[in-house]
């Protein structure tokens, strides 16, 4: 089977090479059948890579440990759910996922443009196949997903417990979809430059792809933040870590592009800018992919061998050099047709938005790559931390939110000053009212948070006003009742009103961010049962410990297993599996926390820490059962107004508990894990009988949920904006517009 996989990769490489040649030949000689053949190579590539991916998945699901990838990241005892996901937890598997997704999106993009902009599409095909070929070459020469060893190992290492969460299944494919989708507009942008064609048709095509990339990348980033918050033990959702930043950068340029593309559409301006943004988005996505795998930056992520670093650097250098070359040699055709008519116009607001976004990109790029920069410039590697990032991104974010409230209020092309002034009254009023309310409610004054609240209120006011006025106008014109008018209004102006909803979502999201960072109460301390701690307005009491033992064998299937289970169950206070969390933790120690506010009980939380088995015989027959990486299981009470977040780090290294482990190691031979479980059960019982002080991390954070809600609103608004009207409606509107246009001329 592995041989078939390797054959697939080689075949894929050949198909890529052929496709590149055929497309370029086809477009340059006008023999379109070759370009079509090139397009079909992309379809074929998608098919081949699907076969390859399926082969690897099957290997994982069948526990085929001959495959190195399977042996390194999976095991017989890994739950099926995680076996399927383990495919992309290794370097090689994730490369295959990347290439596969890329081929799928490329096929889709080419299918959708099979009747349009054929010259651009042909060049784009070549470029997309170039990317595909690059990743496949990596898999053929550097990190082989279908590499095997013999003799076949009998058991695999298992999935890193830190990854055994359902979100882990979705996050990488989603993020990879975002990254790979970014390469499509890149390909079509370069294709457009190569074909010398950057026009209305191209705009229509590339907007869809850029939107798709922006959409999925945004979801990937949100999911990553959510995962970080609800699964990892540090209680935050954003740490300005290199990998987080790497995903954010193309998203920011994508946002800028979606806005400034509208200017190009209306005024024929900013062609160079737009093309550069599209190329930058793709390049940043590739850089992000590279960052995660090369360990080039000294963060948590020492992924991947250094071997991958060099090819990626070469690719990025080629992309950057190629982009600059193309833009410079095509600058004649990229000349602006018009200029911005007036600074008081939506075009100008969009331009400002672009500038802020690019400033953000620059700040984050600089901060993220600073260790490399400082090493290159001063010889000393240094890094900047979150405070530095916050210092510059917070003011920029404030301006961005403010702009998103200003834009809707100003007309395209040239707004009337008097009208604009009048239109700002309500939004400013709402903002001021918010400030007054905050001060009156005696909320502790935090300047940046207050500024963000007021800006968000401004946005809310401005957009509500837009909806209201639009509804009223339509109601008057079409004689519809307000609710119908509202629906019809949004249906007929999806881009505008969908965009407004996205802006509201962003404002809500930033309110959540501002509130949860500025008004957070946190405490980190050791507690013994019975003790409590004050966190903000909440009192959290450590009522009693919990312990649960989960043997990683099926305890009901053998006589010995059943006996052991009986022994374990007999220990007071210790619960015996089942592994409902499906995480495979051998031992889980936790706490029952009683959360109350002003004396009234609010909720009960059950944080715990899971201890996993490792494969190191040096730890002993008992020691290795809990010697693997411990993983914190966070307990959160999420509410609309606040989150109460708790995590526990129990101490299992007290002298007494360590003695049990040592004794177990000495007396029990390293054979069946079941026998070692008796010692683990004894450990758990000893823990329950006299629990040592445990370290707790407790956070009470207001409005965290607004972040996720804001994200959902953004997703909803984006879908509305992009949803195409049925073609019947489109044609009707088009015909009517034509009639009116001609009538207008006659009148004039």
């Amino acid at each position, binding site marked *: 089977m592995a041989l078939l996989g390797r054959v697939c990769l080689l075949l894929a490489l050949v198909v890529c090479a052929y496709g590149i040649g055929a497309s370029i030949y086809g477009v340059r000689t006008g023999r379109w059948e070759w370009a079509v053949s090139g397009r079909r190579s992309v379809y074929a590539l998608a098919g081949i890579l699907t076969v390859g991916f399926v082969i690897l998945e099957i290997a994982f699901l069948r526990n085929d440990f001959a495959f190195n990838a399977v042996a390194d990241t999976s095991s017989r005892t890994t739950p099926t759910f995680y076996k399927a996901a383990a495919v992309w937890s290794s370097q090689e598997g994730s490369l295959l996922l990347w290439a596969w997704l890329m081929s799928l999106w490329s096929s889709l993009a080419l299918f959708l443009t099979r009747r349009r902009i054929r010259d651009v599409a042909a060049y784009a095909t070549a470029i997309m196949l170039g990317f595909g070929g690059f990743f496949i070459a990596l898999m053929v020469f550097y990190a082989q997903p279908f590499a095997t060893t013999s003799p076949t190992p009998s058991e695999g290492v298992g999935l890193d417990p830190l990854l055994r969460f359902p979100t882990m299944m979705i996050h990488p494919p989603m993020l990879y979809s975002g990254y790979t989708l970014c390469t499509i507009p890149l390909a079509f942008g370069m294709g457009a430059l190569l074909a010398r064609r950057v026009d209305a048709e191209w705009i229509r095509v590339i907007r869809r792809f850029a939107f798709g990339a922006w959409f999925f990348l945004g979801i990937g980033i949100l999911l990553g933040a959510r995962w970080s918050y609800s699964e990892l*033990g540090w209680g935050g959702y954003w740490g300005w870590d290199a990998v987080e930043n790497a995903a954010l950068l193309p998203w920011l340029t994508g946002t800028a592009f979606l806005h400034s593309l509208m200017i190009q559409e209306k005024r024929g301006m900013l062609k160079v800018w737009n093309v550069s943004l599209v190329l930058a988005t793709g390049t940043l996505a590739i850089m992000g992919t590279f960052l995660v795998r090369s360990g080039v930056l000294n963060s948590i992520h020492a992924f991947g061998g250094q071997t991958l670093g060099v090819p990626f650097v070469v690719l990025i250098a080629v992309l950057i050099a190629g982009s600059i070359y193309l833009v410079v040699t095509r600058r004649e055709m990229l000349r602006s047709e018009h200029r911005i008519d007036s600074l008081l116009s939506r075009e100008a607001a969009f331009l400002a938005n672009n500038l802020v976004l690019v400033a953000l990109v620059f700040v984050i790029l600089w901060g993220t790559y600073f260790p490399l920069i400082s090493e290159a410039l001063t010889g000393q590697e240094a*890094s900047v931390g979150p405070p530095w990032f916050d210092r510059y991104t917070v003011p920029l974010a404030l301006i961005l939110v403010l702009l998103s409230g200003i834009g809707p209020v100003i007309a395209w092309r040239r707004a009337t000053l008097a009208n604009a002034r009048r239109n700002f009254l309500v939004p400013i009023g709402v903002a001021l009212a918010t400030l007054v309310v905050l001060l009156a409610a005696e909320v502790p004054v935090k300047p940046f948070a207050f500024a963000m609240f007021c800006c968000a209120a401004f946005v809310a006011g401005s957009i509500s006003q837009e909806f209201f006025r639009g509804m009223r106008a339509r109601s008057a014109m079409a004689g519809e009742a307000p609710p119908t008018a509202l629906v019809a209004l949004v249906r007929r102006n999806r881009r505008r009103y969908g965009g407004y909803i996205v802006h509201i979502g962003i404002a809500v999201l930033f309110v959540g961010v501002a509130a949860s960072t500025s008004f957070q109460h946190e405490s980190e301390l050791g507690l013994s049962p019975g003790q409590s701690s004050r966190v903000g307005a909440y009192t959290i009491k450590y009522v009693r410990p919990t312990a649960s033992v989960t043997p990683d064998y099926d305890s009901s299937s053998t006589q010995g297993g059943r006996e052991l289970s009986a022994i374990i169950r007999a220990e007071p206070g210790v619960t015996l599996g089942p592994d409902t969390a499906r995480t495979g933790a051998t031992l889980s120690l936790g706490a029952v926390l009683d959360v109350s506010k002003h004396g009234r009980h609010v909720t009960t939380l059950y944080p715990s820490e899971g201890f996993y088995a490792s494969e190191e015989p040096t730890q002993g027959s008992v020691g290795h059962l809990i010697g693997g*990486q411990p993983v914190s299981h966070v307990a959160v009470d999420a509410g609309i107004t606040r989150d109460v977040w708790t995590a526990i780090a129990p101490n299992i290294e007290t002298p007494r508990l360590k003695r049990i482990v040592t004794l177990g190691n000495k007396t029990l031979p390293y054979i069946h894990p079941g026998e070692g479980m008796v010692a683990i059960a004894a450990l758990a019982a000893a823990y329950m009988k006299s629990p040592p002080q445990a370290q707790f991390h407790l956070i009470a954070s207001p409005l965290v949920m607004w972040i996720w809600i804001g994200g959902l609103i953004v997703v909803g608004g984006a879908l509305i904006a992009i949803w195409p009207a049925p073609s019947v409606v489109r044609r009707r509107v088009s015909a009517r517009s034509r009639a009116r246009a001609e009538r207008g001329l006659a009148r004039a």
Partner: protein
Amino acid sequence: MTPARKRTVRLVVALSVAVVLASALIYTSFSAASPALTPSQLVHEAQPGRSYELTGTVLAHSVSRDGDVLNFSVADRAGGAAGAAVPVAYTGTVPDPFKEGREVIVTVEKQGGEYVGERNSLITKCPSKYKETPASEKQSS
């Protein structure tokens, strides 16, 4: 002023603002950054009052907890033979993967004869194999 002239003025102003802001950014990044040092470098070069990013491996048998403070020693990543091990007194979040023998990054400041770890700045690198976790254990203040 002709429209063309106005446009040039605007462009110049915008560019100047951008250049000024960029310079401010670049300047502060150098002064706000913590140099990354290994334990042996730290022992030689550390100046009191400056913060440094210490990278190395947690020395075996050096971990102990004293109330809220976690004490551990960080040795050079490559071979402990060179000897320098920096004792760190750290308070704050301890990431799950933290263990003896693991690679860590912690921001420290030399106070008197001691090295005090900055609160919540401890990061533990995931073990050597390729791992998918973008897990940042740092707290943003």
